[in-house]
């Protein structure tokens, strides 16, 4: 109990360390994680965390509100989690950020140290903001489109996008308690025989009487 408490304190400290200094620490922790064994990796679907599948994120119940809100958003068909939450300026940065982030999240999660209401942290705010701009650059920067939205230009340069676009993509209300059932079957831990047609119907269709 006290051991875990210590570790949590350390991690908490890590988090206060400026991002640049993360690199060596992250590298060491990476090694430690590998040591935890195949079972652990399988169970937590750690490998899927490196993929671009949004379902990877809902491995943690705690991501469920974000997942649910995103599936009800205008971005569902056009932007997956990683399109917003991972840097897209270069490949190395992308995976470094992912590894760092993934490690941090999974540790907090396993330790049950997560807050009721998660917030995006400063480094990740930058990442997200850059991604908004990455996709919407033309809409928000082109002289000709400035006309469509009054004052879009001055506004968007000194604020973050979702100060105004508060519904994009998670909506305003998204605490763990605010969203109800996640009824979409999560592939990672759904029974393999999960099927859309109920058993009684399959049987009636077969038996033909």
């Amino acid at each position, binding site marked *: 109990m006290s051991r875990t408490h210590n570790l949590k304190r350390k991690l908490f400290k890590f988090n206060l360390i400026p991002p640049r200094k993360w690199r060596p620490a992250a590298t060491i922790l990476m090694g430690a994680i590998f040591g935890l064994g195949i079972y652990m990796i399988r169970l937590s679907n750690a490998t899927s965390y490196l993929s671009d599948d949004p379902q990877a994120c809902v491995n943690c119940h705690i991501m469920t509100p974000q997942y649910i809100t995103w599936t009800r958003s205008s971005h569902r068909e056009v932007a997956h989690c990683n399109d917003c939450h991972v840097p897209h300026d270069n490949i190395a940065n992308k995976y470094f950020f992912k590894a760092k982030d993934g490690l941090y999240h999974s540790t907090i999660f396993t330790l049950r140290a997560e807050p009721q209401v998660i917030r995006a942290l400063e480094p990740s705010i930058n990442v997200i903001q850059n991604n908004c701009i990455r996709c919407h650059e033309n809409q928000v920067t082109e002289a000709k489109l400035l006309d469509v939205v009054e004052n879009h230009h001055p506004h968007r340069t000194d604020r973050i996008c979702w100060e105004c676009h508060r519904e994009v993509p998670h909506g305003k209300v998204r605490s763990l308690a605010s969203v109800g*059932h996640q009824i979409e079957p999560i592939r990672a831990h759904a029974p393999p025989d999960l099927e859309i047609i109920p058993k009684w119907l399959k049987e009636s269709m077969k038996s033909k009487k």
Partner: protein
Amino acid sequence: IMDRKTEARFAYQPKVILEGIEPRDSVWGLNYPRQYQSYMKTKDTTFQSMYNTSGFKDVLDDQPELVILWAGYAFSKDYNHPRGHAWAITDVHNTLRIGSPMEPGDGPQPSTCWTCKSTDVPRLMSEMGLTEYYSHKLSHLATEVINPIGCADCHNPKTMNLTITRPALVEAFEAMGKDINQASHQQMRSLVCAQCHVEYYFDKTRPGEEDAAYLTFPWKEGLSVESMEKYFDNIDFADWTHPISKTKMIKAQHPDYELYEMSVHAKRGVSCADCHMPYKNEGGQKFTDHHIGSPLSNVENSCFVCHREKQEDLLTDVYERQRKVKEGSSKLQKLIAMAHIEAGKAWELGASEEQMKSVLEGIRHAQWRWDFVVASHGGAFHAPLESSRIITSATGIIQEARINLTRILADLGHNKPVEMPDFNDKDKLQLYIGLDIPKEKAAKETFLEQVVPQWLKEGKAREAKKEVKTVSSR
């Protein structure tokens, strides 16, 4: 990790255990009060938009010429705009289309009619077997079918996952060489609706099941209006023969899913539930709004998710599209009505089968195409261009038929416009085609007073015996 995953799915304490096929929404509602309460709002019939309505408008009164189009078929007696799911059973009882069956086995309609009206249907199908279920009269099963469309139609009671409970959809996918089990969650958010909001017919030719009115979706050749037309032509199918023009007709019923699939929204991955069941925020809780009805009563939750336009602009978007499509279809239905009567005149004057062959084919195809667009109440907005394309083709076809008819009539000595009845009076038109509506209405009244209450009483008594298991408190 294992533990916490399951937690995510069952954030609420269930109050009752849902066992087998539970047809009563009120029981499900104990576990899921928000969804239940919003679903109960489908009873509300007050919302009115420009063309559609949840107010159960009498379509025949509004567009009396339809009486001619459907002469000889039950739709010429009574046809209404739909209203909420909660009314599904009541509206079947009320409609003149089912007659007034005083005894089990009476009445014109088969048990198959119930298929899209009630959560009792999956229960009955599982108890009786499919063919048996399809092989009765509607009146035979009337005490069994008392709960309107509800939770059990779309949800797996254990996981609450979306599920398909109607075999016709599964079989239609099979006929197209597809496996519905491969459907993604997003597709399921439309496919649950596609169990009912689709074109269908009763197949009475299945080998060994000839007594059944087997519910079938004619999708084998594809979902387009031409593909289904080809399907019906290939099997030489007719819902009925038109008594005036002698055409072998095909009735199109609400192909909302099929037309929707041709739309840009569908192409972009938008599902029915995105608009008709948007996510809603109530008291800090988010849930899927089960008040299924016109999204126009709720633009902020439905359209605004993707379109940050003025509400006014989104409303006019819908109305403009509906207006443009209806301009064509309203014109067209009058032309088709005239064609039936002109054909009737030609027969009267002694036209030959040979002469009339291509005319009748024209009427068959034009009315089928017209109906496809019009019976899909959402189609004019869901897929405006595809709707309009179909209307254009049907307009060409019916007028070609009328050109032929003009020539045939001239041949038979009648080289002038055929006299038409008054297309603006439903009552007169129903008389014109030989219906005695006052009589049918009187019978209906007796039936609704004497028979229906009895059906419901018996049904409720049966249900009362079924126990509801509550979850013991921890």
